[in-house]
């Protein structure tokens, strides 16, 4: 699972963040019954960016949640509710991997 998450990060997420001077790293991956909870830490320019919540929700969450076995997705210093995540998903529609 770690390799699958890392592959998606490397392919779909990190290039976007790196083009803006930022990055993201996996800090934890825990198996809970049939699901894996994963947590991330934003790096570089993304870490203190005013728009880091957008980056997490649209780019990281939007891509990693495509893995069926993934449960909770969290990110250091970012708090998002299910309502927010649902709204963001609808906002970007087919472009849920929005940034």
């Amino acid at each position: 699972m770690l390799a699958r998450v890392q592959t998606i990060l490397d392919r779909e997420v990190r290039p976007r963040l790196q083009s803006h001077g930022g990055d993201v790293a996996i800090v934890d991956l825990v198996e809970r019954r049939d699901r894996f909870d994963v947590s991330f830490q934003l790096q570089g320019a993304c870490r203190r960016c005013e728009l880091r919540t957008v980056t997490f929700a649209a780019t990281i969450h939007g891509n990693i949640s495509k893995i069926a076995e993934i449960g909770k997705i969290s990110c250091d210093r970012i708090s998002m509710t299910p309502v927010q995540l649902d709204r963001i998903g609808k906002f970007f529609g087919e472009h849920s991997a929005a940034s």
Partner: protein
Amino acid sequence: MHNGIFVFDNVVHMYDNRVDNVIDPMAMNYMAKRFSLSGVVDVDMHERRATDIQDALRFLFVEADADMAMAQTVPLFSYWRKGFAPAELQHALAAAAPDRVMFCGGVDPVFQGLNGALTEMERQAREWNAVSFKFYQGHHAGLTWRADDRRIAYPLFERMSELGVTVAQFHKGIPLGHEYVEDLRPNDVQQAALDFPHMTFVLHHFGQPFIDETINIASRFGNVWLSMSAIINLFPVAPWTVYECLGKALRGVGADRILWGSEAFAYPRVQPYIEAFASMEMPEELQDRYGYPQIDLLAKRKMLGLNMARLIGLDLPAKLRQLNPAISESDISAILGEND
């Protein structure tokens, strides 16, 4: 064109974080560590990236309904040799789609020196057809300059005027790194706006966190405009924050001096933002409580494109005919909002 609305994106950036442009790969990494699962600290975390021209054109004009865009230089040199978004890359994007992309140059008197900045400004205007210049005043370790400094800033504005470039744009608020946030206040633009009445000063990001000051200044100085760059990007996460910012700006400044800015390509999917803004309505509760105006169709037309066209003196009917030779005069009239 989005449902008959002309879309001119005030600000997109071609970033360059490739090895040869990054001075200190850890400078922007405030934690200076990458914590891996193994606990190993990886100091070589960054692969280097730059925005690709063909990707940029696709994001704007194929996957989104933008008609035109301004590629804005980011003259931040604390961490980057040629700037976070170098002038040459912005020009390259404009050169790749000259009918649709305009080049906004950028210089900095602290890092290039005043004479260096003036020389480079003239070069960017004459050789690369800069129609505006972007300025950043908050640099690492407290290096800064003010727009009302007669010895540093005014020569820049005077040279711009001599070159026939009268749109000066300022990144206000939103520090990217360890710059001092007070160096990014909007207040210094007031005297400059008075002393250069023929120029227009565009303040980006509504000056976040100095939003009230920024809107207050724009409300009192007719040649100070606002760009909603970065503010609109918050919409999917915090729509009420955006309503609040836009409501204050519309109430204080009006729809004639606010510009659409997607901040691509930090968020390259531009279309959801265009669609969201084009269909946006000010919640009635906020209208009732705070007097924020409804965002009607004409206001949206202005902010999404008509204002930007007016700002840079674009002959919009001629441009519309160029982009779509089959367009009718009635369609042009509608796009200009003459029927709203």
